[in-house]
């Protein structure tokens, strides 16, 4: 072809014109902290495992969970999913059902017998873990992954701690619990059951442990003095739940049961009472319903099962087979104030669920350096007690007492213990700024309400300890995972690649994300505006 001078041009020759020089601002790809991740006490990278799950890549999703939490099947059931409380999607429609997907993945792992590989060579160090609750299991798991030999000392006949002896089966089937504990055991963790530790230092020396992680929980029920004529039985909830689990002489609680307290244990006790055959179960709570520390969805389920809520009431005494309660009113400052009006509640049993205390007389009480304050063992930011070889976590230390927090403690302590054993410094990664809802461009996410887990037929729920919440179907799990907005983290939606008027975003290929071609980027900022998940920042150029 004879190309006439200047009038006819070779295609794509404008590549010689580097329009990047026009730019006064530049887009930068970033990874911000999704609010779910920051809200997870176990430190799960939720956004990341949902990313894998939404592709149907369940094994990888599970592995991602397992980086932080060894108990997804348990956690998917028994964790109170604070992550969902922070989920940005709630502002768009409803939160992502993170726990349900986690549980789906956890169960899938159990069904498929997925294992975690230990890639770190053995360190030759020995760690003693006291207590096989979530904190202890978590620490043992992470330390094992880090190459250390772990032995768990457990006073009870079975491992699991409060997960086994505090959480009723209808919320956490034992098959699941056993499977996840079993998986940890198969990694090489030694379990010494029925082995209460009295003298930590002695055992350490005797068995050659380099370091200890204590997570013995808070197991003593908090008690109050209630005047009683002994006309009815008074139990504490934690003992009742334990007894149910041990299947030793199931308590005869009668037909009418009053539970005193508003926490999760109270609700568990109430729902267990229903399952033990009680006909009239009520929860008495001092403040208003919305103030109950128990999770609202559990309260809702309890009510559905027939449990009555008697809020703004205080138990004053037990008399003539009745629990006498005084009604309260809320003051202007929203505090309960006694009215002097009394009410009789006929009862066969009164169950106290007023919280638990750390056993002041536990194995840590007299260890040199270990400080105990207001019933809690004091630890520093590295979960270390005053004794450099002794770390502690879970309900034992001052914290919100949930199994997830305990799992988090276990992981965190493991990191520091590992550093200590290897004589290194462990510095946690600096946390990226939070990906707030305002950073998102939610136009791109269509409305998709949270999948509702199949709910067991009410009748079945009331007649036994069968699990209440069913599992998600795979399709639903996938659906749910795909509702994740991927806050603050690129999910390869190609928006930046597509929205750039200057073709200045290079697509690097599946899983490799994108790069800005600063030779041509004019800095218009469209990529950042159109990024649905807020993973592009615009920063000023230094001119």
């Amino acid at each position, binding site marked *: *072809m*004879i*190309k*006439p*001078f*200047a*009038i*006819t*041009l*070779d*295609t794509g020759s404008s590549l010689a014109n580097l329009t990047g020089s026009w730019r006064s601002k530049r887009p930068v790809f970033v990874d911000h902290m999704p609010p779910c991740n920051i809200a997870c006490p176990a430190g799960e990278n939720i956004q990341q495992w949902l990313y894998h799950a939404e592709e149907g890549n369940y094994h990888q999703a599970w592995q991602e969970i397992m980086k932080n939490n060894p108990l997804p099947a348990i956690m998917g059931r028994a964790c109170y999913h604070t992550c969902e409380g922070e989920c940005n999607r709630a502002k768009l429609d409803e939160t992502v059902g993170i726990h349900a997907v986690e549980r789906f993945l956890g169960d899938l792992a159990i069904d498929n017998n997925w294992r975690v590989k230990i890639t770190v060579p053995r360190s030759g160090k020995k760690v003693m873990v006291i207590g096989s609750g979530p904190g202890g299991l978590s620490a043992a798991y992470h330390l094992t992954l880090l190459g250390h030999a772990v032995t768990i000392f457990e006073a009870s006949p079975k491992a699991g701690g409060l997960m086994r002896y505090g959480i009723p089966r209808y919320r956490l089937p034992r098959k699941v619990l056993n499977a996840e504990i079993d998986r940890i055991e198969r990694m090489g963790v030694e379990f010494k059951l029925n082995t209460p530790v009295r003298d930590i230092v002695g055992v350490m020396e005797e068995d050659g442990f380099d370091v200890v992680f204590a997570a013995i929980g808070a197991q003593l029920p908090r008690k109050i003095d209630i005047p009683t004529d002994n006309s009815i039985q008074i139990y504490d909830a934690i003992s009742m739940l334990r007894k149910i689990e041990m299947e030793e002489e199931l308590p005869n609680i009668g037909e009418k049961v009053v539970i005193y307290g508003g926490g999760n244990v109270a609700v568990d006790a109430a729902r267990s009472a229903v399952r033990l055959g009680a006909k009239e179960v009520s929860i008495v709570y001092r403040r208003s319903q919305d103030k109950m520390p128990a999770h609202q969805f559990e309260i809702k389920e309890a009510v559905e099962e027939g449990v009555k809520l008697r809020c703004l009431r205080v138990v004053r005494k037990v008399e003539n087979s009745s629990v006498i309660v005084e009604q309260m009113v809320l003051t202007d400052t929203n505090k309960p104030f006694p009215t002097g009006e009394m009410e009789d509640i006929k009862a066969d049993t009164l169950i106290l669920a007023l919280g638990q205390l750390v056993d002041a007389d536990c194995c840590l009480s007299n260890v040199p350096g270990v400080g105990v304050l207001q019933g809690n063992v004091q630890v520093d930011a590295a979960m270390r007690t005053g004794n450099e070889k002794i770390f502690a976590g879970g309900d034992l230390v001052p914290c919100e007492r949930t199994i997830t927090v305990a799992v988090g403690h276990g992981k965190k302590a493991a990191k520091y213990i590992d550093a200590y054993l290897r004589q290194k410094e462990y510095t946690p990664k600096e946390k990226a700024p939070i990906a707030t809802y305002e950073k998102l461009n939610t136009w791109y996410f269509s409305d998709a309400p949270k999948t509702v887990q199949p709910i067991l037929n009410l009748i079945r729920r009331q007649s036994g300890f069968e699990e209440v919440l069913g599992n998600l179907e795979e399709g639903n799990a996938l659906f749910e995972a795909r509702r994740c907005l991927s806050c603050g983290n690129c999910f390869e939606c190609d928006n930046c690649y597509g929205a750039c008027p200057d073709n200045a975003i290079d697509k690097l290929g599946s899983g490799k994300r994108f790069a800005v071609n600063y030779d041509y980027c004019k800095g218009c900022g469209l990529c950042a505006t159109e990024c649905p998940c807020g993973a592009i920042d615009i920063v000023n150029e230094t001119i």
Partner: protein
Amino acid sequence: MLKQIEGSQAVAETIGLCRPEVICAYPITPQTHIVEGLGTLVRKGIITNCEYINVESEFAALSVAIGASAGGARSYTATASQGLLFMAEAVYNASGLGLPIVMTIGNRAIGAPINIWNDHSDSMSMRDSGWIQLYAETNQEAMDLHIQAFRIAEEVGCPVMVCMDGFILTHAYERVDVPRQEQVDAFLPPYEPMQVLDPSDPVSIGAMVGPEAFSEVRYLAHYKQMRALERIPEISAEFKERFGRDSGGLVHPYKTEDAETIVVALGSVNGTIKDVIDEMRLDGKKIGSLSICSFRPFPLERLREILSPAKQIIVIEKNIAVGMGGILSANIRMALRGLVQPVTTCIAGLGGRPITKKSLQEMFDKTMRQEVDDINFLDLDWEIIRRELDREKADRRSGPIAENILKDIGKRLEE
């Protein structure tokens, strides 16, 4: 094959022999018979492999031709007068893009006042548009020029206008020799575009060019026409070899060898001029004529060569550069730059006014007697003009000139 047919039909048949691939048709007198003829030829299947497109304006006609040509198709259209002006933007564009479109102009005056009859105002207005302009003396030459025009256009990469006088040629039945298809095929190879729109070898055609290169682009356009100046006579010579006829080329001199007076003109009026010259020669007058075929490129040197021995030049031109005189004469003076011969402008035949032998001869005689002005108007009705000018002097709002003149003519007829 000899035929007695209308000029437009003859041209249509010839275009058909040139195997056009896209024809854009829009009616405007006096060109219309050509595209009508082509339409019939296409419909009847006499012209094959051709898209005949009825467009909505001259602007579209040439625009479609531009697209078709850039797409690699041999493209043709025809127009006249206002139509040429309406497509003016595209006229410049086609040449600027170097697209070898061939377009017939059925030369016609430009209004207002609207006038459908012949003169050269239309094609003259586009003389500097970058197109090659060839003027036909006869219908035979009009036909032959079209065949040559495709050759020239496609070789040089420049569009060509073939100008033929409206009505005088387009509507005249004359004897013509219509060539055979194989003759034309042998002379005119299939169109091999220099540049073409093709997905398998993409280019961008029609870039915006700034001050840094625009002059060079324009120079190259000029250079292209200078090259055409060489190719036009060569192609004409080759044409003569194959078809046995003298057609095209730069100029047609007639009895100029010993002429002291040479009459220069474009187009069909040269026939009448030749008759006058023959008669004047019988009276012993040394007069000859020169018909210019290639007005663009303008054959300055060839003209100088032929005209410089003469003592005087008369330019008969069917246009008026209002406020200046004659366009052709100005160009001729350029050819004779530095020489002393007077070049007399004679503006004639505007808007279809007949150019008669009688008037021409008077004009030539007067010129030879040096009784003329630099700029003269053939058969101008001075009486009417005087009346109008007097009226204008008397009353600034004397009314529309054309209407007044018509009234005057009416009055005079009554007298």
